[in-house]
């Protein structure tokens, strides 16, 4: 084992959305920061967006499911006991590499679910307390959008104008207006004008195979260059196996495999987990010792529990006119918070978001975009293809699933990654509340598409490949009886171990979480900087 004798001040595991923001913030304060990432840098110029067969890459090396990619630095996930497949990407930038960059904030009520609705728990902070960090993060990533959304308190100016709505947006807005429902142009982490040295989006469409122009704010093009310029060290192809503890019960570093598969050790004064809601509990559960026989920071027994995903139903409307939805960022046009807040007369608590999606190219259209209604083979094939291609709008119904301890991440006894580190196994079922919510959402989305003029509506009631949001598995709270970390991501059991990714979410809200994950990482980083003398002592 190669030993590094010099401990770094802060060692971050994972170079995705949260780790990048945290590294950038801390490196500003003369803190010696190192990050270990199991993936590598990707080169935007080499993304397959210039290829005529780009749709094949969405199913291959950019498939969001690591089990389908066959890339050596991924780890497998046992997804046999969940109806929702966990999705993630391992590289500098993490899952922001393949993300659609839809960038909503959590709403004020999401932080107050116990007080307002009597379920789960309130967060240790409010929307107002996080707001300066949302704003700072927006400036760092560059957000396209427009202020005035009535589903939020007034927001600071967006950095660039919104992503164009196109015919898709114009058509669905007719439906919203006919029904008098809330809608708004989506906040997107994609710049529509040059910003911060990056080029503007040219509406090429498939954000999910990487953004060649760097218009999409993946963490490798936003935070990392600046963090490195400030002195942060980023080591790639460095796959952490476990976090080690000293006889005093404090974390003292990690053991990792380098690119050649050699075991190495890195010592640190503080260790920070930023590996997402599955990767973080996996590594902590794999860090067992006589002091921590059930995994590190798990005296609560809650590590890996309360996994939340956001169940997604896809409702696709077919229209007579050409909408050309393969042009323009797939995931960003219009959102609706009409059914976001609790109304118990609907038969469920909490709510859901509508995210209006454009469509895909011909190959994925034929297979059934979002796995909704593949085009039949045989004599009728061309007729149905012509009816659908470029003529659909899909409304994604994304609901809030509440934390439940039986939904969880464990270590798999049989499956491991290529270095022998046990794979995570995910056990998850939708609650009665979530099922009622999705049914309600499917009915309302159908009504919306019909109001917009759809002549046919097709439904995928639960998209299996929808586990983009990995939340809740090391939740924040006041003490060890109800949580793994405190309100600043600090583990109750191990005072120099922090968790800053989506694992710490108390509840999930019903919005895409990256904006909140990054704001929270910046909020924790500020706390860290204010207390660094004490924390690094």
């Amino acid at each position, binding site marked *: 084992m190669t030993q590094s004798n010099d401990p770094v001040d802060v060692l971050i595991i994972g170079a995705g959305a949260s780790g990048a923001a945290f590294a950038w913030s801390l490196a500003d304060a003369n803190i010696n920061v190192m990050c270990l990432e199991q993936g590598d840098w990707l080169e935007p110029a080499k993304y397959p967006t210039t290829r005529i067969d780009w*749709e094949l890459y969405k199913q291959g090396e950019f498939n969001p499911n690591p089990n389908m990619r066959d890339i050596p630095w991924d780890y497998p996930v046992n997804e046999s006991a969940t109806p929702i497949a966990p999705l993630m990407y391992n590289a500098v930038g993490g899952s922001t590499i393949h993300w659609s960059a839809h960038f909503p904030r959590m709403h004020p009520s999401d932080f107050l679910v116990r007080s307002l609705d009597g379920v789960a728990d309130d967060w240790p902070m409010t929307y107002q307390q996080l707001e300066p960090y949302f704003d700072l993060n927006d400036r760092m990533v560059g957000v396209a959008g427009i202020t005035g959304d009535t589903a939020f308190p007034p927001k600071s100016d967006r950095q660039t104008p919104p992503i164009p709505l196109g015919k898709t947006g114009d058509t669905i807005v007719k439906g919203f207006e006919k029904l008098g429902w809330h809608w708004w142009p989506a906040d997107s982490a994609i710049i529509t004008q040059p910003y911060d040295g990056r080029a503007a989006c040219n*509406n090429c469409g498939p954000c999910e195979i990487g953004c060649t122009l760097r218009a999409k704010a993946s963490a490798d093009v936003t935070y990392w260059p600046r963090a490195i310029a400030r002195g942060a060290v980023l080591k790639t192809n460095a796959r952490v196996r476990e976090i080690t503890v000293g006889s005093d019960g404090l974390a003292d570093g990690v053991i990792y495999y380098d690119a050649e598969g050699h075991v190495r050790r890195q010592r640190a004064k503080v260790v920070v987990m930023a590996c997402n809601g599955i990767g973080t509990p996996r590594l902590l559960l794999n860090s067992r010792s006589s002091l921590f026989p059930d995994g590190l920071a798990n005296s609560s027994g809650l590590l890996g529990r309360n996994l939340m995903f956001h169940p997604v139903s896809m409702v696709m409307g077919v229209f007579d006119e050409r909408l050309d939805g393969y042009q323009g960022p797939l995931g960003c046009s219009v959102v609706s918070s009409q059914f976001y807040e609790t109304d118990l007369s609907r038969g469920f608590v909490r709510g859901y978001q509508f995210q209006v999606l454009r469509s895909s190219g011909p190959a994925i259209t*034929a297979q059934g975009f979002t796995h909704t209604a593949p085009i039949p083979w*045989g004599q009728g094939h061309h007729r149905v293809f012509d009816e659908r291609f470029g003529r659909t709008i899909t409304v994604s119904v994304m609901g809030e699933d509440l934390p439940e301890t039986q939904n969880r991440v464990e270590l798999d006894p049989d499956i491991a990654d290529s270095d022998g580190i046990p794979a995570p196994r995910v056990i998850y079922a939708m609650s009665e509340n979530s099922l009622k919510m999705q049914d309600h959402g499917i009915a309302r989305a159908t009504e919306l598409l019909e109001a917009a003029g759809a002549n046919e509506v097709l439904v995928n009631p639960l998209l299996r490949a929808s586990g983009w949001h990995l939340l809740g598995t090391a939740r924040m709270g006041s003490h060890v009886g109800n949580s793994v970390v405190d309100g600043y991501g600090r583990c109750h059991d191990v005072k120099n171990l922090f968790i800053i990714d989506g694992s710490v979410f108390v509840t999930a809200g019903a919005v895409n979480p990256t904006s909140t994950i990054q704001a929270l990482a910046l909020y924790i980083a500020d706390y860290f900087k204010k207390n660094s003398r004490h924390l690094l002592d």
Partner: protein
Amino acid sequence: MPALHSFFSDAQSELVARVLDRIVPPTGKMPGAGEIAVEYLDRFVAASANHKRTFSNGLSGIELRAQRSFSGNFASLTGEQQDEVLRQVEAADRRFFDLLVRQTYNGYYTNPRIIEALGLEARGPQPRGYRVEMGNISLMENVQRRGRIYRDR
């Protein structure tokens, strides 16, 4: 020696071409998948030992059912009989048939000839991107008139 990226025998290639023409048939303006996607499918299958096994068995299954149901090889059957055989295979060997259809669509709809026949430009999304209209965002004023909908206390 067949090239490394090739797996189908001549007989299999011929069978695949006929099968593909039933999956995506030729019409007036569009060629059938048998003319477009056989090479793609061959490369796809050749890349994986798993797929080679699945396709060897699957293609044999097609001929077997053709013989059993209509006492002839697949090529000698009428179009309706061929579809009937494929429906039997679809019901009996879902994994093979789904893969066959999905990869046929992939090979067919990423082919420049087909993309042009659909009236699209035969190019990747970059570097040119697309021009998309902003749309009628002034209707946002209606949303604002309907008032605030968030709760914070």
